[in-house]
């Protein structure tokens, strides 16, 4: 392993560097179309290699959930998962191959598979998403209670501002004061909401995204330049 590691590191750095350079070839050689096709080819290879990792994922899932069934821990969940993965999916694939898409009730794109997706997976995911606002409200309340006790005035002020902003944005979004016939209050809240979103939130968000972009670039360059020190290919 020790003798292969430097070779792997150099190979990774060369391929990574080459892919990066192809983005900047048009700056100096505007006619060079080969750069884009070279990059496309290299990225395609990466996708093919990454696809093989799915086998490791399936093996891991099988091992963990088979052990759960044997130990009696979350037995039903694990059984449903393994049955879905190892019985149903292959059966539907085989049906698809046999019927060749002639029967609507069979196959991967047939009624069984799409029904499973449409009537089980989609509603469950939608339910989870619908729960998010309640989780957030609870988290905000919990944070306010925890951080306002014994954390100093700075933390309390931050949580207070967080809650105040959330209330202003929420009230500015919904027409809560319309039935009460308070147009001035509604107008002010709407203006406050617009100012918060366009100035404070946008400014903060751009700052964060700029920092993230720098972090992503620095991480990528570090992996390419100092690959021998901390990359998966280093040992």
């Amino acid at each position: 392993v020790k003798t292969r590691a430097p070779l792997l590191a150099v190979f990774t750095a060369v391929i990574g560097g080459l892919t990066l350079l192809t983005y900047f070839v048009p700056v100096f050689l505007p006619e060079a179309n080969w750069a884009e096709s070279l990059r496309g080819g290299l990225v395609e290879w990466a996708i093919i290699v990454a696809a093989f990792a799915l086998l490791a994922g399936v093996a891991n899932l099988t091992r963990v959930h088979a052990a759960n069934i044997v130990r009696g821990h979350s037995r039903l969940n694990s059984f449903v998962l393994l049955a879905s993965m190892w019985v149903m999916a292959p059966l539907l694939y085989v049906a698809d191959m046999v019927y060749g898409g002639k029967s609507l009730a069979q196959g991967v794109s047939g009624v069984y598979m799409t029904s499973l997706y449409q009537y089980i997976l989609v509603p469950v995911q939608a339910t989870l998403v619908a729960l998010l606002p309640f989780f957030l409200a609870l988290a905000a309340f919990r944070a306010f209670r925890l951080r306002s006790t014994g954390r100093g005035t700075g933390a309390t002020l931050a949580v207070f501002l967080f809650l105040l902003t959330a209330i202003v944005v929420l009230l500015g979004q919904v027409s809560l004061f319309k039935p009460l016939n308070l147009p001035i209050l509604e107008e002010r809240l709407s203006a406050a909401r617009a100012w918060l979103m366009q100035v404070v939130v946008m400014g903060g968000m751009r700052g964060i995204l700029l920092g993230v972009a720098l972090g992503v670039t620095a991480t990528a360059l570090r992996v390419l330049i100092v690959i021998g020190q901390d990359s998966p290919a280093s040992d």
Partner: protein
Amino acid sequence: MLEQFVGLILLLILGISIVVLVGSALVGRRLHLRPLHGYQALPVQLGRVIEEGQSLHLCLGSGGAGGSDTATTLAGLAVLDGLAEESAATDVSPLVTVADPTTLMMAQDILRRAYARQGNPKGYDPTSVRYVAAAPLPYAAGVMELLSGQEASTNVMAGVFGAEAALIADQGAQLGLTQIAGVADPAALSVLYPAVNHLAVGEEMFSAGAYLRGLPAHIASLRAQDIARGVLFVFILLLAVPQALSKLLGG
């Protein structure tokens, strides 16, 4: 063309800064790190987990290698790398959950190498890294279920997350876990801010390797980020101030 040229200049600034700073770190010059509570709390928390005989849960999110999330995923893996050594030395392996098979393989490799370096390759359990689901929401649901059945006292989230992070954080809060998170996505940041004890915001999450392992390359890339940020700050000021002045003066 202009965007590519500006991008190239920024890359050169970052690349040259990394090379120079790694060089100066290797000749023994100390690079200063500003305090960052989230990652400084992590080794303390790990020590507590080991003392109490409980476990630590690390969520690496739904990102993987090969796409636009690669760098963020690597930043999450740097957190695992920072924890792996001590975990292997004390034989208290963290439970790691992933939603991408490429991340699964890299996380398993990090743990395996840590156990091998500690002279205990047999102590490594490949199932301590678990592939939960292939999409963010089922992943969050799977992690919630895992957390409720686990004797964990700490939950760490580092990697690619969206709004579904709120589900995991809420489960952690209900169980009374100490929660530390490092995310780059603004949606995840906004849902995690009220829910976790320590939060590494945006670019801070890319500094895990520098704080947890003190590797010269990581510290150098962090310092290079600061330099590039300074350059960008000056550029933004140079462009924004004349415009603001001309608006103020009615030009």
